């Protein structure tokens, strides 16, 4: 019972990181149907920004995270403007290759300028471990879980309650009709990238604090797994991405706890294939009927 509770806590902390990343994937895919391969690398940039401002400018944790979100939002908008906007009318596979190119560029650019060494993330917050009923919970785990839930709630409010959120939903349903009613598509898409990248930036700083080590290639595997989470939850759906993220996190820790850690990624992909076969549009995905 205790171990199950312990694994649940670990799984939820890891899952909230995946959920934050999956939100960016799901929003971008929902609006321009692009698998943004560079998203995992924006998360890496967020972690490096946090490392930089805490070490050099002595920011406290809250400011480090907020500034990382701002920085990543800016990077996301710049990438969209230069790499994806010219390709909006071209075949989707072209945009996908460009996204892969951007991902390579960010990874290798960071490796070139800052070396590929792994570095220790500064401990901006002293780790305190609480013991509740035999389960160990650190304040960092609580912080990750709390921040992730807060950000998801905030995102849900932005999408459902603000004018920009309404525009985002409209563009994802039908871009041309949205344009006809006076929505500026370019601004809306930029805003979507900013929101998604800000979430990734926050996730980057949180993971730095949790795992304590960052390197320029850290975004690759979590990026792909977060995309898997978004697909499982139903791509284009915000609650789906959060649920998918938590599911993947829990699944991974469960497989590790059983002692099959060598197969943890294989299990994740296997579950993905099974879910896609049973629910082809993911858990919360919209079913689309085919017109003949």
């Amino acid at each position: 019972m205790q171990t199950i509770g312990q694994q649940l806590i670990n799984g939820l902390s890891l899952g909230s990181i995946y959920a934050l990343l999956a939100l960016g994937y799901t929003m971008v895919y929902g609006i321009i149907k692009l698998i943004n391969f560079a998203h995992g690398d924006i998360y890496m940039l967020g972690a490096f920004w946090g490392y930089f401002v805490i070490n050099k400018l002595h920011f406290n944790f809250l400011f480090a995270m907020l500034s990382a979100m701002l920085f990543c939002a800016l990077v996301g908008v710049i990438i969209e403007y230069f790499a994806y906007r010219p390709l909006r009318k071209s075949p989707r596979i072209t945009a996908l290759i460009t996204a892969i190119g951007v991902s390579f560029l960010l990874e290798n650019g960071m490796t070139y300028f800052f070396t590929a060494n792994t570095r220790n993330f500064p401990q901006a917050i002293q780790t305190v471990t609480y013991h509740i009923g035999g389960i160990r919970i650190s304040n960092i785990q609580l912080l990750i879980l709390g921040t992730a839930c807060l950000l998801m709630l905030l995102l849900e409010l932005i999408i459902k309650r603000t004018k920009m959120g309404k525009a985002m939903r409209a563009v994802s349903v039908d871009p041309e009709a949205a344009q006809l009613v006076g929505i500026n598509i370019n601004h809306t898409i930029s805003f979507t990238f900013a929101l998604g990248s800000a979430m990734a930036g926050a996730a980057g700083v949180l993971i730095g604090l949790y795992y304590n080590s960052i390197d320029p290639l850290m975004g690759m595997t979590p990026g792909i797994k977060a995309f898997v989470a978004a697909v499982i939850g139903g791509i284009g759906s915000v609650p789906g991405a959060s649920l998918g993220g938590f599911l993947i996190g829990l699944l991974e820790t469960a497989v590790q706890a059983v002692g099959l850690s060598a197969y943890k990624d294989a299990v994740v992909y296997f579950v993905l294939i099974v879910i896609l076969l049973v629910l082809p549009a993911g858990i919360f995905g919209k079913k689309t009927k085919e017109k003949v």
Partner: protein
Amino acid sequence: MKANLKYNAAWLGVMVLGFVVIDACEFLGIINSFIENMLVTIGINIILATGLNLIIGFSGQFSLGHAGFMAIGAYATGIITQTLVTPIGFYLSVVVGIVIAIIAALIVGIPTLRLRGDYLAIATMGAAEIIRILINNLKITNGAAGLFNIPPLVTWATVYVFMCVTTIVTVNFIHSRSGRAVMSVREDEIAAESMGINTTRWKLAAFVFGASTAAIGGSLHAAYIQTIAPGDFNIMASIAILIIVVLGGVGSITGTFIAAIVLGTLDTVLQNFGTLRMIIYSLALILIMIFKPSGLLGTWEFSFKRLGSRQRKEQSVHE
């Protein structure tokens, strides 16, 4: 096949000429081991990318798991040729690799080919990763360390011949009745179905065909490079093959050849730049995609048939 005999003969002539030219350069010492290595890599990439182009460009199914099938071929060769150190052992291992890849492609393809577009891509990527993780944990494949000292049973000539044979077979498949069925699935699945084409069967046929050529590419890779590890066949390897296909133009075999040659040469030239190499490579990729979104050649294909008919037309105009 019979109708295209004349054009196939013309292509055979080109291939023999290519062989003679490379052989002559080798004899005269123009090609050193460095360039030969580059040529062999290009040849293997052409085999892999032609198979993937058949899946993506001609049957319209987006597969991101090509490296998984390549890994099957590579490991079949690596394991079998360690006990059977003869050319016969190598050819046997190629056949075994193809058979296992076909079985794996059927297991992966039958359920996942019901999915569409990006979902299919993610599912095939997942399947390839599962293959890689299995190889990474099995005893017979020597785990994460991989296999080394694989006997060098392959020369550039073997790769060249295999490249020509797989290309001729693939192109003839595309130009056959089956190939037209596959392409009709790409154009409009519902319309194809209403014409009596079993869409699932032809999608699967293209997928299995692509997988078996990937296994051949993997076998050649293992026997030429002599060292393989599970890490060589990860998602990035699948993406590298995809990049060749998209850069050359989805649905153009000529484009695949040109893109493989351009990228192979670029890679060799950029070796001198050290770590800057990947930055230049990724920038080149982004810029080509932005300024030439349909790939270098689009769907344009070089064809002796068209060349011949144009000449005939010109003659009739002159008369």
